[in-house]
């Protein structure tokens, strides 16, 4: 391929989706020069599936990203049309913020954020080749003839790499939303020895609002008091006017699906690649749960200046005629008109075991991966990887230590540890159950967990950091205050207690003591807490910490215990085959994953406790010798 124009930069990011955006912004904000290549400048930050940010565990990721200085939370706040806090009845650890966004506005916001970023250049082209010299990334070449020399490259290709769309028997080599697929880069990666595999995902149809009869459908409005993702955004300025609807499939719908299953590329065997377990298509649901008479789904607006509606829960890869027939069996959709047909998409991605916890390749220095390319699913999962890859690429360019978040610190740390330690069998979706520390990793304490780090790295501005510190001081003051301030017995108080099913209060108690009663939330006793500050947000956070302190202390003890193994570092260049007593299977797995600590080694499937003990003895005996060799 001919090169017409050479450029030089520190870091090249391939792709400007949710991973590429955070990667480029983080790298540039950390002072590196950065070129972001995208197939279409009009599709920066595109949401090819659900027009929404957050949800269970995903909301947690966005709060964590925000505490580290990422962009997604701000963009979601600025373009929100509806906001709901999920799981309110299931406990503070799983409260999860979910925002509907105006997807056109979101794209515009992100494009502008990147355009405005000093040190960041956007180029519309297709990356076709990565060149490597002496085991290190050298340049990225494009279809139109750029060669961009760089010191690090982040691959964030999403579903565009080798993308192929299926609508029933119809197929098209294409990415989502009419953008062409990137077909050349895979060959270059294969040549470089990157382990490439094929995953698939899917999306429902977008339909015209006018073609839906909303009569009798259950309305789902936003929460009465919306909450922003970004610390510092004013809740009163959030646009929470969007309305969604709930609707259900019926037996007739299921009958149409069953009758046409052989025409589905998945069930017909045309698509062999693996889809996300936790995001089933409607035909999956009908096949897997034959006893269910109906399945719920949501009708969601794609934005304020469009009539496109998204049918959340009705993703399918059945042919067009079946899509019409099936959708039209549903109440309210009898005359529905499809604007963008539902489809399944296959794409190339890597086996994340090829990556280290920095998201850098273990075989090619300076080459990073982020987002769906690493085997995940979801905008939020992609964004946090982009941030971590961007930070690490910048730190490598600047000669600084790698940035790795432990599992106990965050869902971000948990996600990346899972990817690079266990690998993935299907597109990985974040869930609260994936964290053994989930009671500690809450949305409400994301800032206390990560703002110090965000500031140390250099992504959190001084202003923002000062705000955090002030809030932290207020939090500590409030916690202490609630342990001191007393509430007197009164008939009003006991009326509340009785109403909540709590025992009668017979003597003066501190606010903290009252909070420890089952069923009693801070909102129940707020009226009696006379010294509480006007602004209650921090008070609520402190109340959570007090109410759950028993559980939290236990988890902290577990973290301490686990830390011993996490702190026992394994050398990068350890020759596992030379360790006597280690089983061959374990040595092979260890060599593939190359864990950085004994703790991580213990989480690798195929490595058993005996192997860990052998390793630990090896470490103990060779610590001295090893240090000596390396000094």
């Amino acid at each position, binding site marked *: 391929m001919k090169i017409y124009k050479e450029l030089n930069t520190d870091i090249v990011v391939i792709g400007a989706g949710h991973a590429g955006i955070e990667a480029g912004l983080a790298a540039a904000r950390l002072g590196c020069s950065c070129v972001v290549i995208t197939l279409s400048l009009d599709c920066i930050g595109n949401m090819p599936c659900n027009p929404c940010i957050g949800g*269970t565990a995903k909301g947690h990721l966005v709060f964590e990203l925000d505490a580290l200085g990422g962009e997604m939370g701000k963009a979601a706040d600025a373009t929100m049309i509806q906001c709901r806090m999920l799981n309110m009845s299931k406990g503070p650890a799983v409260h999860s913020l979910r925002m509907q966004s105006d997807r056109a506005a979101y794209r515009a916001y992100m494009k502008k954020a990147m355009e405005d970023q000093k040190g960041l250049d956007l180029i519309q082209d297709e990356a076709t080749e990565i060149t490597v010299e002496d085991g290190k990334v050298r340049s990225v070449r494009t279809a139109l003839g750029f060669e961009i020399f760089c010191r690090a490259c982040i691959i964030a290709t999403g579903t565009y790499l080798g993308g192929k769309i299926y609508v029933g028997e119809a197929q098209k080599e294409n990415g989502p939303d009419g953008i062409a697929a990137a077909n050349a880069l895979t060959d270059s990666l294969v040549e470089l020895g990157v382990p490439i595999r094929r995953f698939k995902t899917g999306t429902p149809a977008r339909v015209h609002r006018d073609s839906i009869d909303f009569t009798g459908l259950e309305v789902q409005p936003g929460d009465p008091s919306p909450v922003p993702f970004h610390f510092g955004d004013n809740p009163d300025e959030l646009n929470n006017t969007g309305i969604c609807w709930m609707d259900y499939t019926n037996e007739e719908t299921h009958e149409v699906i069953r009758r046409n299953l052989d025409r589905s590329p998945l069930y017909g065997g045309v698509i062999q690649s693996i889809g996300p377990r*936790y995001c089933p298509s409607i035909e999956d649901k009908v096949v897997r749960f034959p006893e269910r008479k109906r399945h719920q789904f949501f009708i969601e607006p794609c934005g304020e200046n469009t009539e496109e509606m998204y049918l959340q829960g009705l993703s399918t890869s059945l042919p067009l005629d079946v899509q019409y027939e099936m959708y039209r069996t549903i109440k309210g959709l009898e005359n529905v008109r499809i604007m963008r047909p539902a489809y399944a998409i296959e794409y190339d991605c890597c086996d994340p075991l090829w990556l280290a916890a920095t998201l850098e390749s273990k075989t090619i220095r300076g080459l990073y991966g982020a987002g769906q390319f690493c085997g995940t699913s979801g905008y939020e999962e992609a964004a946090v990887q982009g941030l971590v890859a961007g930070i690490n690429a910048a730190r490598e360019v600047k000669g600084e230590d790698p940035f790795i978040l432990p599992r106990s610190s965050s869902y971000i740390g948990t996600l990346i540890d899972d990817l690079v330690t266990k690998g993935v069998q299907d597109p990985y979706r974040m869930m609260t159950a994936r964290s053994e520390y989930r009671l500690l990793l809450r949305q409400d304490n994301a800032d206390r967990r990560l703002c110090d780090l965000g500031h140390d790295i250099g992504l959190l501005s001084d202003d923002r950091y000062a705000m955090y510190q002030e809030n932290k001081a207020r939090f500590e003051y409030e916690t202490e205050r609630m342990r001191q301030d007393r509430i007197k017995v009164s008939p009003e108080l006991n009326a509340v207690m009785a109403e909540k099913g709590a025992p009668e209060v017979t003597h003066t108690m501190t606010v903290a003591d009252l909070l420890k009663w089952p069923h009693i939330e801070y909102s129940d006793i707020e009226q009696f807490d006379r010294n509480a500050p006007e602004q209650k947000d921090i008070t609520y956070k402190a109340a959570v910490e007090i109410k759950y302190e028993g559980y939290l202390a236990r988890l902290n003890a577990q973290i301490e215990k686990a830390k011993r193994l996490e702190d026992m570092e394994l050398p990068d260049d350890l020759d596992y085959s030379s360790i006597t007593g280690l089983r061959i299977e374990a040595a092979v797995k260890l060599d593939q994953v190359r864990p950085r600590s004994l703790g991580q080694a213990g989480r690798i499937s195929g490595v058993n406790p005996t192997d860990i*003990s052998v390793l630990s003895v090896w470490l103990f005996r060779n610590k001295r010798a090893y240090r000596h060799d390396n000094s």
Partner: protein
Amino acid sequence: MDTIAGIATPPGEGGIAIIRISGDDALEVASKIFIPKNKNRAIKNAKGYTAIFGTAVDGDTELDEAVALIFRGPRSYTGEDEVEIQCHGGNMAPKAILRAAYREGARPADRGEYTKRAFLNGRISLTEAEAVAEMISAQSSQGERAALSLMKGSLYRKAEEMKAGLITAEANISAAIEFPDEAPDIDDAEIISILSETRDGLEKLLKNYSTGLAVMRGVPVVIAGSPNVGKSTIMNLLSGTDRAIVSPTAGTTRDVIESTIDCDGITLFLSDTAGIRDTDDAAEAEGVRRALDKVSDTALLIAVFDQSKKLDEGDRKLLETAEGIPSVAIINKSDLENRIETGEIKKRFAEVITISAIDESSREEIVKAVHNAIGVNGLSPDAGLLVSERQRSCVERGLGAVNEAIEAIEYGITYDAVHVLIGEAIESLAELSGENVTEEVLDDVFSRFCVGK
């Protein structure tokens, strides 16, 4: 590492027993349960390789005179700080001291954990460790092993059953949390019903623990009775050897005679004792005193009576001492005329059999009565038995978590916390059935060791 404690000497009789405490807080724990005689000495200040004489205590209760040996890591068997408390042998004192150590913060040592730690700290090699394991395995009897594998199978099934229930509960909660818009809401009553069922199952397992230990480790048994009622004949009948000196002259057995026998799958550590009677002979009187001591301290008593004689003073003494001890009464010499007050014996003993010990076929009857007294016969074959301290500790942890989860739901604690508790319970059950879970470390090689080794 955290601090563990266990009894290092074999169960049953022995002049001295050793309680071994190892870990970061070993000195701390030991100093709370051991008061040096010399007030100027303290375990915490003691150098390694020193011995201190004193009293083992549990709070304010004095347990036994004892000697504490202090080892400071890395110069100890495990490579950690270690204290060995040597006390008198038998069942009572060592167990009481061990309980006191648990109360002060030590946790029960898993099977082979001392060796595991020695290995982890580089004190011994893997091959050495395996050699220790082989040696220990070689000592256990075939009968034990057979019984063990049988019981293990049903225990595994029980654990799996309970785990499956808990996983259903966990999955329901997970689905509701992860997919709040799609999955059905959590049904408190359903979750509590699953948890209660698991709780009952775990409680039953714990209740059977002593029987499990009997199957696994054997039962100390004392044979006692007046002189010449046929104790030694019965012992020989059970063990199939002429171990005890048998002669028609009363008072032949003056000392405690021990023998390990296989009683159809259960190992019995049999002690024959001197005949119990009033005597002026100083040596014989000492024998009688020891015999009665042993009776009051045994796990199972076989009391032997002579059918042809009325109950005498020695017999009555035995009846009194036997009060509250698991026991079998054998009325021997059924071939002779019946003069004994059988009613009085039946009042005191649940298991009473009448036999003639010179008839070899009566062995079967004795074995059956012994099994009944230990509780083995009452067990259904699929009950599932816990046979090690490690398993018991798993069940206790699981039960604790299940109880806490039930309480949490009833108290209105939210499901994020309940979910974590159920997760803990599942983990303990996975460990119980021997699956490789995150928390389970190094059990593979080391589970073959005894607790104390």
